[in-house]
């Protein structure tokens, strides 16, 4: 990752210098080593603060909605999975491609600080990242870890190392690769439960929602200027999670609004302070869409219709839900 970071710094510097871009959207260190924040760099000097490590999970695509409205061109670093969301935003005319310069950056999979904590790793000062081998320098000494054990949930079912869109690449020839898991495994597990069990599961999860809207803010597809849940004219404006249904309604509708558009980036779950597995709702829609209407990956390309804006005369009937068995 360090090699890539150096490539990023030097290319960004060059592009700024030669005037190809006016600004750079990347990550800078946060309060701790493990919370790099998205940041805009305007000068070559400031690029010393550009970081890229196992905690640079925050997707930058969505920041481009505002960033590309400004004059001039902005350089953005996109990990392979981030490019799907970028494509989606292009499809919906949310970002201005001409004002963007995309450098696709290689990725070894992003890390889950919670998993590190669970493993007893605290007080991280920095990491030495070398493929699967990872050494955490902490206040309490060094710890050696296997990267695969601490990958973020969303990285366990990585979409692969291909960038779907870029102007140039900053990748290494020998990236670390890991075995990915079936992204629908958990959805399938839930489908196998009884409705009572499922209801209990979701009640348990969703009742923790504090309606902080982090999921909505991080989501590259939830890019409405004003959300229906904030709009008094919508009839469904919601104020707080005063009851058991509000969050159900919010999360069902949010998942429905992004159905057929969700790139499965996993940011919703990653940013959720309550650790609600919100991505499962989206994956349920994706799994159904794939099964009912054919495989579809939002953001794989910019053109064409999405599953909910097209139809086939021979589509399955809604009763398929009852016919496919289960309780």
């Amino acid at each position: 990752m360090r090699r890539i970071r150096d490539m990023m710094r030097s290319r960004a510097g060059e592009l700024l210098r030669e005037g190809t871009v006016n600004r750079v959207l990347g990550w800078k260190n946060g309060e701790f080593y493990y919370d790099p924040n998205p940041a805009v760099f305007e000068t070559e000097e400031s690029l010393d603060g550009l970081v890229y490590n196992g905690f640079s999970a925050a997707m930058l695509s969505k920041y481009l909605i505002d960033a590309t409205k400004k004059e001039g061109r902005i350089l953005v670093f996109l990990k392979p999975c981030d490019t799907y969301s970028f494509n989606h935003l292009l499809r919906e005319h949310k970002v201005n491609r001409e004002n963007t310069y995309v450098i696709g950056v290689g990725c070894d999979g992003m890390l889950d600080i919670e998993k590190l904590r669970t493993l007893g790793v605290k007080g991280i000062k920095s990491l030495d990242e070398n493929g699967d081998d990872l050494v955490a320098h902490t206040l309490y000494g060094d710890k050696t870890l296997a990267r695969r054990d601490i990958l973020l949930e969303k990285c366990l079912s990585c979409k692969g190392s291909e960038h779907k869109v870029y102007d140039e690449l900053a990748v290494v020839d020998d990236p670390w690769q890991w075995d990915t898991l079936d992204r629908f495994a958990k959805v399938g597990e839930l489908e196998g439960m009884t409705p009572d069990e499922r209801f209990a599961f979701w009640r348990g999860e969703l009742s923790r929602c504090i309606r902080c809207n982090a999921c909505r803010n991080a989501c590259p597809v939830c890019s409405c200027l004003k959300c229906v849940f904030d709009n008094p004219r919508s009839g469904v404006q919601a104020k707080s999670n005063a009851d058991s249904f509000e969050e159900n309604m919010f999360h069902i509708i949010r998942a429905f609004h992004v159905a057929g558009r969700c790139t499965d980036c996993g940011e919703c779950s990653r940013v959720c302070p309550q650790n609600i597995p919100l991505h499962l709702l989206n994956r349920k829609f994706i799994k159904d869409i794939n099964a009912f209407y054919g495989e579809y990956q939002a953001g794989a390309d910019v053109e064409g219709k999405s599953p909910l804006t097209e139809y086939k005369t021979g589509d399955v009937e809604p009763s398929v839900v009852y016919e496919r068995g289960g309780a």
Partner: protein
Amino acid sequence: MQKIGVFICWCGSNIAATVDVEAVAEAVKTEPNVVFSTNYQYMCSEGGQSAIRNAIAEHGLTGIVVCACSPRMHEATFRKAAAVAGLNPYMVEIANIREQCSWIHKEKSEGTEKAIILARAAVAKLNRNVPLFAGESPVIKRALVIGGGIAGIQTALDVADAGYEVDIVEKTPTIGGKMAMLDKTFPTLDCAACILTPKMVDASAHEKINLYTYSEVESVSGFVGNFTVNIRKRARAVNSDLCTGCGVCVEKCPSKSAKSEFNQGLCNRSAIYIPFAQAIPNVPVIDRDACIKFKTGKCGICEKVCTAKAIDYDQEDEIITKQYGAVVLATGFKPISMERYDEFQYAQCPDVITSLEFERICNAAGPTKGKVLRPSDHEPPKTVVFVQCVGSRATVDCGKTYCSKICCMYTAKHAMLLREKYPDTEAYVFYIDVRTPGKSFDEFYRRAVEEYGVHYIKGMVGKVAEEDGHLIVQGSDLIADKQVVIKADMVVLAAAIEPDPTARSLGTMFTASMDTNDFFTEAHPKLRPVESPTAGIFLSGLCQGPKDIPDTVAQAGAAASKVIGLLSKDKLMGNPCVAGCSEPLCNGCSSCELVCPYGAITYEDKMVIDHGVRETRRVACVNEAVCQGCGACTVTCPSGAMDLKGFTNLQIMAEVDAICR
């Protein structure tokens, strides 16, 4: 603040027997903003309507709820009554307490309770109603007919006779279409040319009709009443204004090896040609692929022989832009390709021909001057086998699932004509079913059998093999339960028909929807058979589905009457219950544009003021004249920017809340 009046109808005893109308009137009084309620024996009667009018005036009502029969029955009546009293007609809501209440429930208590809830829902909705005003748009008093076959000609003539201008765009060099290629027509056996050419002449001579032959529609914009169409008039390389149609150029042209399209490739034509003698306009066209001048730069004979100086090698395509109030699609059909039917040896044996080719062979102006001769050796056939349903009613990939409708009749005609001209020639017809549902059709078919001695064999042909100059036709005779082998000299295939391939792109251009077979779909299969679901687009002839000449002419006339109905209006009143976009909310995602079946939504960069901030945004714009109000866009819109007037999100949710309370 609204002032709502509620009117409960007894409908005699239809409602009053199961619903306590007094109780309903009483119950709704406590609903928000209800200032008046009453009941009456027949609300739809003059007495009832005047009660409404009086109450509106007396109580200064801003909206009314009528609890009565289905809105499908009297919504229009009550809206008119309200309008007379100066109320916006869209401030009227109907609670259906007859069909959906009193008629289905027996217990009065139940019926009353439900009627109250339905009334409450209507009040809840009305509380969120706003006055709606139908938009108006002007109507351009000119129609465009695409396709110059019998369907297009007939529609154009009927519309023009009503006094409106009509333009016909025809892609070939002449009008006349497929009918011009036919010899005789069933069931009367009158000559196709004899009945068609006078109509062609009428069309060309009509002062209100303008022909654009050798032309195609290039693009279209606009909507019902006001389409703007670009027509590409392809260069004939002959100046139509100067040409006298003498035909000397055609005669002298040294390049005579192009296949004659009009004669189905059975004979050749010159590079400069007039498709057939009665072509309209009678102006030749140069086929640039065949012309020596265009290919090599040398020749120029036609130019030399033309005394009118009409030949113009430098002529270029011309784009004509015109406005139309209505568009008629009359793009017609073609027989399907027989390439995938090699069991019949169509591509291998010249004596295996299609029915349309047989028409040309029968025709006095055709390649054999009307003598039925085999294409291979120009000998008269002694035995001819006709095979029906080739590619029709087939579910395998190379065929068409539908019945082509015309083949049974023209095959009977062909066999009859053959036996009439050549009594010594045997005619066999292999059929699956003989379908003759038309006036004098079955009698016609029976004449072929009984008077002309045509052998009808129920069965199908499995294989045709050429042996020793004959066509060995192996087929089944299902009645005799045997396999028959006929030594034939000619085999005629009744090829299935399909829409002309140009229809697809026109369908996309005009957002005229098509079925899976590329036939245009009707606005309603029974009740609106000549209209496309897209307003202002009408359908004439085979482009809508297989039909014979009488049906085509009838449908062409029907399409014309619909066009006349539209053009006779100066202005079109739109349906005010259309979609509308709240621009500050629109996030420009294009989802609505993708689901709109009418192409009513476009995206524009507009100055939007949102919380005092002015910025240019890409927002959805609804063309209210085109929108039909289905609401597909409103649900696909994630931000709720798109809403449907008359059925807004808030209105429907108010109903839900009222019902579920």
